[in-house]
């Protein structure tokens, strides 16, 4: 397969038995916020970054470390050796017409790195939730997913599918990536939450809590939320303080 992206690795090691977590750019950016929490709380290390025409370019300072002089770009990959997870963090949405090729390349590269499976974190419009009293979370597990049994024991509902093709309204590229994983015979789990745009930080905390039920990333002996560390880039998420001269 012809490579369209430019990959810059700082760590070329294989990722045997790692789980790749990918946030889909969706309603309230819940997936991305959850990944931010994971990277920050688990002190994950950057292993690569990707340049692609499939993304709106974004640059900034390191979002997880104030002292770092590293440039942060639209698509970066972090890993935690102790937890055996990789997070592909996205800072901007994908451009529809280029997305398929980009995601296929991502999956191909990670298959070469011998990852175990993929977990996609996404969200859907709150008004699409039909059963009001049910959990706001839904899941879809592909055949061969090792999480199928675990997730059945959790109080979350399986995604209802009428058409035979996964469709998550407002869920961004989640369904496309799920399809690519299936075609590549890579086990995949999609977790998504019904929510609305606004302060979606609580949704991200809830997402990590649900993720913990299938993938224990934090100590179960301590309170989960006390173990989560917000990244420095979340400061001023809702704007700066009012200027003093307005009073």
């Amino acid at each position, binding site marked *: 397969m012809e490579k369209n992206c430019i990959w810059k690795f700082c760590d070329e090691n294989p990722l045997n038995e790692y789980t790749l977590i990918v946030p889909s750019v969706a309603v309230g950016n819940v997936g991305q916020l959850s990944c931010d929490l994971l990277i920050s709380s688990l002190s994950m290390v950057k292993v690569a970054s990707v340049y692609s025409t499939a993304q709106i*370019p974004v640059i*900034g*300072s390191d979002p997880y470390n104030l002292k770092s002089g590293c440039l942060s770009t639209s698509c970066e990959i972090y890993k935690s050796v102790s937890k055996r997870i990789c997070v592909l963090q996205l800072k901007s949405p994908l451009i529809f017409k280029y997305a398929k090729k980009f995601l296929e390349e991502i999956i191909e590269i990670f298959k070469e790195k011998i990852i175990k499976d993929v977990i996609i974190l996404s969200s859907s419009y709150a008004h699409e939730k039909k059963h009001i009293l049910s959990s706001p979370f839904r899941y879809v597990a592909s055949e061969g997913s090792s999480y199928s049994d675990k997730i059945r024991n959790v109080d979350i509902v399986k995604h209802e599918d009428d058409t035979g093709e996964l469709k998550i309204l407002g*869920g961004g590229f989640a369904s496309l990536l799920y399809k690519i994983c299936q075609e590549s015979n890579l086990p995949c789990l999609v977790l998504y939450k019904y929510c609305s745009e606004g302060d979606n930080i609580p949704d991200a905390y809830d997402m990590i809590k649900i993720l913990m039920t299938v993938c224990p990333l934090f100590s179960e002996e301590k309170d989960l939320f006390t173990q989560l560390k917000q990244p420095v880039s979340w400061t001023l998420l809702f704007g700066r303080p009012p200027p003093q001269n307005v009073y």
Partner: protein
Amino acid sequence: MSTFGEIVEPVSRTTWEDWDEVYAEENVTIIQWQLPIEIPKRIETLFILEGKFLSDFMKVQSRDFFKLINSNIGVNLHLYQLTSSDKYICTVKDYNLLKSSEIIELLKPFIYKSEDVITIQTKPIMEYQTASLGMQSWVIRQLTTSVPSKKTWDLNFAKLEQPNILSGVTAGAICLREHINLSATALVCYIEHIEEYQTNELLKLLEKFEIIDDTCSAKCSGILSSNLYI
């Protein structure tokens, strides 16, 4: 103001594509130069100037100093060459953010070839996120690639702090240079109004990079800051 029950998307998401609809554009279009273009043998520095002020400012400058070599009107992209050196200037304004990476594809040969890339863009001061309580009329911040520039531009601006980010063509050029291990610097000028007392710092920057000389800055036409005509 929205009516009761109406679902209102935040302004920050208005440019995003609707992935739920099937009519989303799938055809890959290529942005092209209007005239045939030859990639120069040597590019000392490529400057990418983004924003209305910088684009319009370059347009009104004397053609003795630099010449327009190519354009793409669709995305308001213009490429100039400084007549006395191997420096190239690209200006871009008012384009669809979704086309940023396609514009970068067009500029790619220049971005690869250039010994150094400097980007300058203007943004409204209200977009600058800081915990500082003081109100400034302008702020300049910089970001650099991990490979430092061989040239000593003597830029002493503070690093652009989190959570501020840059996006679009300038970000694309810096991002690409970072991934091909070449040097680049992004400068962002947060300004409130395009009035002379605030653009002084910007003009000083252009003088420092030898894009303009001190006589050019005097020609900062009143048209630029006028809102009489669109």
